[in-house]
Structures are given as structure tokens and as C-alpha cells.
């Protein structure tokens, strides 16, 4: 399906393969086209972020009227936001859930990815295939039985209930398994000769070598945990345990929503994932590299 649409546009990306040859007018034109297209793509990608920041500086009424320039309401919006929302508390909740959740997911899912790839057996391959299929079950279908379990364990309204179901992530296991294919087997053999046990190899050889894979996974998992909505919504009951994602989302449903304040909230809610991304992005690109080798 994908490649039927490719030949028509194939000429453009191929341009840069040729671009190493001494320039001819045709090649220069192509090159210019690549820059124009990439610039458009970059602009389209970044513009909504810019727009969000513009919104956060305007009054609600102006935003509704479609005002498209910077305003002077940033501090008022911030003040409204901080009086309505116990920001410290909700940020703590979000940060705790995202950080602990990410750490546990990295550990449990990378262990499994390593296990599936290094010790292949027929039974485990079957299990793996089955897991991939289960990746497609919509979460809404599993929510009620999950809730029953957590309420019987008296864990409703706890961070535990939010974190635990996300820790073994099939997608991340899949990702680590693919990445492990690129892990040099000589390293493992050498470590074995040195008498290291398998868990020691994992801890002292695999983890340091694969650190860029871990960096990449960190961004993906952190993002997912930070933005998680439906399950935390159901399982967190009291205001003091809720995450920033839940709180900002609820602000939009007031009879008279204050959009300036809400956009200020969304800027705040987006910041942590942006920071994590910028901190880890260099490693991230390398990490993805490992995943598909």
C-alpha cells in the first residue's frame, strides 16, 4: 500500500543523493525544493507551539475572537491559574507518577525485551506474538475489570494504581527486543568467560552499552505517563492526588472557560516533556538507531 504512492514523489528525496555531484542548475533547483519543503514542514510542526504561547499572553475574550498577536495578559493568566490550581501539588503528583512509572517501565520492560531476544524458544516466541496482538485491545474495554481488581486490593486513589498497569508495556518490550538485536554478542560472550552471571551481564554490560536505547525509551515512556488520561481519571478520586493533565483538561469544561488561563496551563503542562526531550534528544536519535538495526 505504501509504495504505490511513492514513485510519484520519489524524485524529490532522491535529489539529495545526487547533490554531491558538482552542481548543475537542475540539481540546485532540486536542492532548493528540499529546503523549501523541509522549512514548510518545520514551520507547520512548530507553529502550534508558538500559537499556544501567543494564546497564553492574551485574554480569554481575545482568544475567542481569534486575536493572533502577543498580548499583555501573561501574568494575569498565570495569577488566575495559580489561584485556581494547587500547581505545586499537581506537579508533584504528575512528576512522581511519571518518574517512578518511567523507571519501573524501563527496568521491567527492558528485562523482558532482553529475555525474549537472548533466550529464544518456541514457547516464548508464541507468547511474544500473542502479546503483539493484544497490543491492539482498546483500553476502554479493560477498564472495568482493572478497576474491580484495584478496588479489591484497596488501591483506588493511589499512585500505585496509576503506575502498575503501565509498567509492563508491550510496545516498550518490543522496542527493547529490536534494540537488543544490535547488542554485540561478543561482549556477552566475553563477560561469560569472565564468569559474570546473566543478571550481572545485564546490569553491568548491557545497560551501560545500551544507554542511548534507554534514553530514547525514557522520552517515549515519560511522554506516555505524563499525558496518560483515561485510567488516572477513573482511578484517582480526590483533588489532591490528581495530575496536571487531568486538572488542565477539566478547566476547559467550565461554563465560562478562561482560555488565557487554560493555555497558560497547557504551556506549563507541556514544559516537562519538552525539557526531557531536549535533554535526551541527542541520545534519542542514537537510541532509535539501535532499535532498527
Amino acid at each position, binding site marked *: 500500500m505504501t509504495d504505490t504512492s511513492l514513485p510519484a514523489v520519489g524524485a524529490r528525496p532522491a535529489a539529495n*543523493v545526487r547533490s554531491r555531484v558538482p552542481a548543475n542548475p537542475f540539481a540546485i533547483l532540486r536542492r532548493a525544493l*528540499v529546503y523549501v519543503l*523541509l*522549512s514548510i514542514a518545520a514551520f507547520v510542526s512548530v507553529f502550534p507551539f508558538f500559537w499556544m504561547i501567543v494564546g497564553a499572553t492574551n485574554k480569554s475574550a481575545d482568544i475567542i475572537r481569534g486575536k*493572533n498577536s502577543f498580548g499583555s495578559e501573561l501574568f494575569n493568566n498565570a495569577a488566575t491559574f495559580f489561584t485556581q490550581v494547587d500547581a505545586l501539588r499537581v506537579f508533584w503528583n504528575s512528576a512522581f507518577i511519571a518518574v517512578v512509572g518511567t523507571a519501573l517501565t524501563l527496568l521491567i520492560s527492558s528485562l523482558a525485551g532482553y529475555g*525474549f531476544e537472548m533466550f529464544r524458544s518456541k514457547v516464548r516466541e508464541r507468547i511474544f506474538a500473542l502479546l503483539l496482538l493484544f497490543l491492539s485491545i482498546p483500553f476502554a474495554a479493560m477498564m472495568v475489570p482493572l478497576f474491580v481488581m484495584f478496588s479489591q486490593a484497596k488501591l483506588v486513589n493511589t499512585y500505585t494504581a496509576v503506575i*502498575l498497569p503501565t509498567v509492563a508495556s508491550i510496545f516498550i518490550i518490543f522496542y527493547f527486543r529490536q534494540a537488543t538485536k544490535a547488542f554485540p554478542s561478543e561482549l556477552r560472550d566475553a563477560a561469560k568467560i569472565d564468569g559474570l552471571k546473566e543478571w550481572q551481564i545485564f546490569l553491568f554490560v548491557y545497560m551501560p552499552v545500551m544507554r542511548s536505547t534507554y534514553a530514547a525509551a525514557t522520552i517515549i515512556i515519560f511522554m506516555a505517563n505524563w499525558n496518560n488520561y483515561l485510567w488516572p481519571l477513573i482511578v484517582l478520586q480526590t483533588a489532591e492526588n490528581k495530575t496536571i493533565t487531568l486538572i488542565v483538561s477539566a478547566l*476547559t469544561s467550565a461554563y465560562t472557560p478562561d482560555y488565557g488561563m*487554560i493555555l497558560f496551563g497547557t504551556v506549563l503542562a507541556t514544559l516537562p516533556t519538552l525539557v526531557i526531550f531536549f535533554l535526551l534528544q541527542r541520545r534519542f536519535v542514537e537510541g532509535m538507531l539501535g532499535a*532498527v538495526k
Partner: protein
Amino acid sequence: MAYARLDRREQLTGWAFIAPALVLLGLFMIYPIIWSLWMSFQVGKGMNLSFGGFANIERLTKDPVFLRALGNTFIFFIIQVPIMITLALLFAVALNDSTLRFRGLFRTAIFLPCVTSLIAYSTIFKSMFATDGVVNQALMALHIIGSPIGWFTDPFWAKVIVILAITWRWTGYNMIFYLAALQNVDRSIYEAARIDGVPAWARFTHITIPMLKPVILFTTVISTIGTLQLFDEVYNFTAGSGGPSDSTLTLSLYIYNLTFKFMPSFGYSATVSWVIVVLVGILSFLQFLVARDRRRT
């Protein structure tokens, strides 16, 4: 497929590594899934359920809303996945050129959308594509359109906006996978082909695409699952209605409605969930099959 012979000890180590994940998945995934499979044979409303055999499956075939949701989901899938994968490939190939300036900048910019939070993104898209929003203002200023487009009020444009939005959010994400894979392709193959006079587009279809086939397959499967489960965008863009006129109602949104908005009809919503599983199973199988056939030729 042949497996290296593992001794008993290694077998045990293998199980030990995957055991924590399997226990957790068993509790939080397999158990709810089996529960929902059991539920899909139950009929009734609210708490009054009884065994109904295949009644829910029969109901599916006669349910116009289900068929609409299925149709919409397929339209999103058939149009959006190829567009996104093609764009991601194009960007990746363009950015893979080491002589290109500002590569890091372009790469970061195009990847950025997928780290945004869902509420931020849906709030912003709603405001940008409002009838008086910045997009219509810009299009009118450029004289591309004469009167504002009702992005969210017209059934056709509402579908377009959902496709635009998912493409915006996930193209960079897929691009990174291709970029990574492209860095493994041996440059000398391209050079040799070029010297042999193979035209650019033929090099793309005959070298780049085959080399990337495993990654394309991987991203296609992941995107297929993502699109068939499409919920976030349509829920947030339409205040949960899937409107106008059910034009953006997806299977996942329908499941949500059956569970939470309508008179709770649990067995039936579980049945719809299983439709997605079966569809993903079939589509993934077909995608693997297509990929395998091409490898042979």
C-alpha cells in the same frame, strides 16, 4: 524457524528475565482481556446481564452506527497511514543527506509535535481551525479560499482535520525510525548505482525502499494499531460526540460511548473491542504477507 538449543539452565534464565513483565501483563492485560471476551457473550443493560451466545455479533451486523464507525475508521486508516508513512520517508531521506544544512534543527522541529501533551494539542487545534481562526484567516489572506471553511462543522472537513491532526502529531515520530534505519544503509551501494546510471527515483524504489522494508513494516503495524484505536483526537475535537453527523465517530469512540455515555451495554462494547483485535490481526497478517511476497520477487 530454528532455535538455538538452550540448556535447562538457560531456559530458566530466559523465563526469569521475562517473568516480571509476564506476571504484570497477566494481571493487568490478559485477565481483563479474557474478562472482556467472556463479556462479549453477555447481553443486557447495566447490571442485568445474561448469557446471550452470539447475539452481540448478530447485533453488530445490523447496527448502522457500528457500520458507520467501522467505515470512518477504515477511511482514516486507508488515507492517513500511507500519507504519514510517505511523508515520514520523504523527510527521512531528505534529512539523511549529510551535506544538508540545519539538519538537527529540521529534525528537532519535525519531531517536536509528538512530545506535546494531548490537551495542549487539541485545545490549540480547535482554536487554530475555528471558523474565525488563524488558519482560515491565513487562507483567506492568501486568497486560497473565498469564505471560511467550517473545519469542525462540516462532515467532510471534520474528517480532513482529524487526518491532518494525527499526521501532524506522528509524522516526525515515524521519521526518526526511518532516519535511524537509513544510517545503516551502505553509501557505496548508492554510489555504484549512480555510476551505473540508475536514475534517482529508481534508486529510491529499488534500493532505499527494500532496505527499509523491515522498518516500514514495523511502523505500518504500529500505525495500523494506532489508527484503529483512534480515540484521543476525535474525543477532544468533538466534545465526545464524533460529529458532525457521526463523521468522525471511530470504533474506539463508539466503545467509549457504549460504556460510559449510553445506557451501559457492556457485553456489546466488549464485542466491538474484539472487532478491533480481529481487524488488527488480519491487517498485520496481510502486511507481513505483502512484505514477504516482495522479498521473494
